[in-house]
């Protein structure tokens, strides 16, 4: 079905690059990866010709190894009672180039969710009517959901009764308490 949709889009939007991303078996929701330049045209086609009239979710995913940030849109059709069609757009991780077209002009409900993605992932949405931070304060400069975000060091590490579990977590999963992170890095260098 997604292949069919892909064909339809490819015919309707000239020059578009589409890729089907198979997701994990649990979700069973293959997604359509669209190139940035044709994302808006594709979305417009989906809205107008495929009756995907409702955008339920906009979020971001950080892929530090790919050097990319992905914005994911979940589109539903209330008219046809189908969905979701998962639309993905990727942009480079660098803050300056991390730009994707905003789909707020098509689905009004994207406005706050795109603001959230901007706030937490640092994705700039071109064409967004009011791109401000929504969760963190305006003076905040970081994007906390990025994998390389370092939270402020205001956490008190105290020995607790479940230290054995934590020790195992350090050994098995490599989970390190925030306050001990620096120290461990120093020890590694030595």
């Amino acid at each position, binding site marked *: 079905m997604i292949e069919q949709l892909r064909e339809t889009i490819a015919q309707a939007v000239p020059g578009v690059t589409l890729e089907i991303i198979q997701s994990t078996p649990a979700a069973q929701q293959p997604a359509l990866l669209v190139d940035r330049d044709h994302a808006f045209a594709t979305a417009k086609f989906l809205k107008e010709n495929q009756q995907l009239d409702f955008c339920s979710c906009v979020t971001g995913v950080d892929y530090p190894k790919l050097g990319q940030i992905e914005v994911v849109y979940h589109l539903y059709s209330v008219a046809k009672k189908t969905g979701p069609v998962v639309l993905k757009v990727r942009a480079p991780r660098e803050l300056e180039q991390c730009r994707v077209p905003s789909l707020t002009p098509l689905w009004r409900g994207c406005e706050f969710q795109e603001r959230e993605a901007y706030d937490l992932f640092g994705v700039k949405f071109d064409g967004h009517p009011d791109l401000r931070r929504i969760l963190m*304060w305006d*003076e905040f400069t970081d994007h906390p959901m990025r994998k390389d975000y370092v939270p*402020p060091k205001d956490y008190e590490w105290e*020995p607790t009764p479940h230290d*054995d579990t934590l020790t195992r977590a350090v050994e098995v999963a490599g989970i390190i308490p925030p306050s001990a992170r620096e120290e*461990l890095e120093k020890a590694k260098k030595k």
Partner: protein
Amino acid sequence: MAYDEGLKSELQKSGIFVLPFEQLYNWGRKNSIWPLQFGLACCAIEMIASAASRYDLARFGAEVFRATPRQADLMIVAGTVTKKMLPQVVRLFNQMPEPKYVIAMGACAISGGPFKDGYNVLKGVDRFIPVDVHIPGCPPRPEALIHAIMTLQRKIAGQTLGQDQRWYEKSATTEFPIPAFGAHDLEPPANREVWQPPRNYTDVTIAEVLKK
């Protein structure tokens, strides 16, 4: 306070009550606590339950929840205090008239609770305002809040007039500094006059933790 217990008891039999003015004054104060009406998260639901008919906070004279800080003398910090919300909490506290008290209700308000390692959550409201009673629990049951009110009442009953209280000192300020929104965190991240980090905090090493 020097007064004759025997005489007091004798007089009481004939219907005359003798007690220090301080006691009378504090008796009035402690049985008429007006909390500030605001809740930040799920603890607020327990606070509402405490004030409603089943748990009936009115039995302890603390049922008049005021919607303005100018008329309140108890702040119940019920819920997670995010860093974005904190300046408003401190501002409300500053606007309350003295004498004023704070109850930090629930794990979040006392320490950050389950959100302790979140970048956006304040790790305990006592970093910025002086807390009189801490209630653990997630969320604490209404009984726990009532117990906290009773604890606060005991504290009020034990306070002396005009001497050792913060708000009677001439130099005392009722203004607690409101932190500013910084680029990465609140500035300052804690009010050091109110709160000091635990003494051993910086001493705990990962080696120590791993050894245990």
